[in-house]
């Protein structure tokens, strides 16, 4: 068996670990093991690559290669390890972006390398797709990162003629692709790179911060496709399998996520959702109804009389890092014989599953976490629904107001409980920028302030009583 065959067999092994890893990620018990299996497969593939001859000679630039990998390790490990949990979505965005960038660079460089031998048209097409999709993903991820990191506004950026401009740039990219196919011009390849980056930026600008997780999932799938395109160019089954796996599963995942938000993918991508703030943000409305606010101590008393409490966490909890105090409160209530559940909306927070990750960090047993449908059943018999930093996911407008932008999104019906308590920083509307009727419901009490501070005061008050 030749060395190349042996290494290709090793690649086959790695590709298999990737399939097994994705399979493992489908169940909470095997997910972590699955991820490690894929990491192992990746290390094996990278090591094997050092020994695989290219163009009939041993690979050049081994020290440079090792240097590049070491740079990657030195930068990525501390960043990935120590960045705050709330910053997870932007981390995924940026690591996805660099992957797309790498795929585009691989395609370009391979084109420069084989250009002299006049490659077939389909090879050029693979290169062009790799450049287009990879760069698009890179630029799009960079903007998503900026939105999530709040380096720029999280609201959709819109301007007149937006769709037309996007259309023109897209058309220009297609024309450039045609040009390169005919002329094999390397200069035009760089033009395509520029146009793809522009397209990525323009595409992401009108998408609101609340929808960015779905967008990242889509860009993730795009990077997968770009990697698969590079695999075609390089003639690598490993890249084709891994890239296609990510592309296909990523697209499905994107659909599942948008379904969980009760909206269609085109609606998320093109409707500039949340561009206009329809909420007034006032504590009193024109029709004279006003909100009722209470102190943490009032709520502690209310909780003390309850026999069943449902916590409904949202992004505000993540921001204030109040998850540990929330669990402390839950433990306290349980020690008094009060039943406690956490009702988890699938899109609460800034990414699907955000709340699960956050609460798991605080060692909340996952038996106490109930998904939306079950939460709605529990709420029917609950005495208190404690909404901690959530807003849009409990907004009844999604059910009764046909004109509301979030109409049709499944919500947690906090209003089913005897009493509703909102812990809010201010009257500012949620991420979707729409008013929440539930705040004006007579059942509702608002406690203003940072969620963590309020929870700490409530814990103290419950302890004292």
């Amino acid at each position: 068996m030749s060395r190349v065959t042996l290494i290709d067999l090793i690649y086959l092994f790695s590709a298999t670990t990737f399939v097994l890893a994705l399979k493992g990620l489908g169940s909470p018990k095997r997910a972590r093991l699955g991820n490690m299996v894929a990491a192992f497969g990746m290390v094996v593939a990278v090591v094997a690559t050092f020994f695989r001859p290219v163009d009939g000679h041993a690979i050049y630039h081994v020290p440079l290669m090792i240097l590049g990998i070491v740079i990657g390790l030195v930068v990525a490990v501390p960043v990935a390890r120590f960045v705050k949990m709330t910053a997870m979505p932007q981390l995924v965005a940026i690591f996805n972006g660099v992957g797309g960038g790498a795929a585009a660079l691989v395609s370009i460089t391979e084109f420069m390398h084989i250009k002299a031998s006049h490659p077939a048209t389909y090879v050029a097409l693979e290169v062009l797709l790799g450049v287009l999709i990879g760069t698009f993903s890179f630029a799009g991820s960079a903007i998503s990162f900026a939105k999530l990191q709040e380096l720029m506004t999280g609201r959709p950026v819109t301007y007149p003629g937006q769709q037309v401009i996007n259309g023109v740039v897209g058309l220009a990219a297609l024309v450039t692709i045609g040009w390169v196919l005919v002329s094999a011009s390397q200069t035009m390849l760089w033009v395509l790179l520029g146009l793809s980056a522009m397209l990525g930026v323009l595409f992401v600008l009108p998408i609101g911060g609340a929808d960015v997780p779905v967008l990242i999932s889509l860009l993730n799938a795009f990077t997968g496709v770009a990697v698969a395109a590079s695999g075609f160019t390089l003639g690598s089954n490993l890249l084709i399998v891994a890239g296609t796996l990510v592309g296909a599963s990523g697209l499905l995942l994107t659909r599942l996520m948008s379904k969980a938000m009760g909206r269609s993918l085109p609606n998320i991508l093109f409707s500039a959702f949340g561009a206009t703030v329809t909420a007034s943000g006032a504590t009193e409305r024109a029709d004279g109804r006003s909100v009722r606010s209470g102190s943490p101590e009032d709520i502690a008393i209310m909780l003390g009389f309850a026999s069943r409490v449902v916590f409904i966490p949202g992004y505000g909890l993540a921001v204030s890092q109040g998850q540990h105090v929330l669990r402390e409160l839950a433990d306290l209530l349980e020690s008094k014989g009060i039943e406690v559940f956490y009702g988890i909306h699938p899109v609460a927070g800034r990414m699907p599953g955000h709340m699960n990750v956050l609460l798991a960090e605080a060692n909340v047993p996952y038996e106490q976490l109930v998904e939306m449908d079950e939460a709605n059943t529990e709420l029917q018999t609950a005495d208190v629904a404690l909404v901690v930093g959530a807003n849009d996911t409990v907004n009844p407008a999604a059910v009764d107001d046909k004109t509301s932008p979030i109409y049709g999104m499944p919500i947690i019906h906090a209003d089913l409980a005897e009493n509703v308590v909102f812990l809010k920083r201010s009257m500012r509307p949620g991420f979707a920028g729409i008013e929440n009727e539930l705040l004006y419901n007579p059942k509702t009490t608002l406690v203003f302030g940072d969620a963590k501070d309020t929870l700490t005061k409530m814990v103290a008050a419950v302890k004292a009583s």
Partner: protein
Amino acid sequence: MGNALLQYATVFMLTIFVGVEIIAKVPSILHTPLMSGSNAIHGVILVGSMTILGAATTNAEEILGFLAVILAALNVVGGFVVTDRMLEMFKPKAKTPKAGSTSEVAK
């Protein structure tokens, strides 16, 4: 159009079905780790980056190849570490089995 292309196209088509099939029933709580995990997997572009750097014969190819290796290494390493960090927190709590009802929690 050579046989090689046909072979790659075959692999591509079949992998699409595998990709869709294996994640069709993922619970929503795992959507984010799954996204992050597949993000790490497309970091396999590192192997492609190494291949082009290993074949580079001009300065331009060397620079672009080196850049690609750095970006891809960031993708791979960051992807796996972030995913592991998320999944670390999904450990089931030893004292309460999954099948157990809520009653045993309330003590």
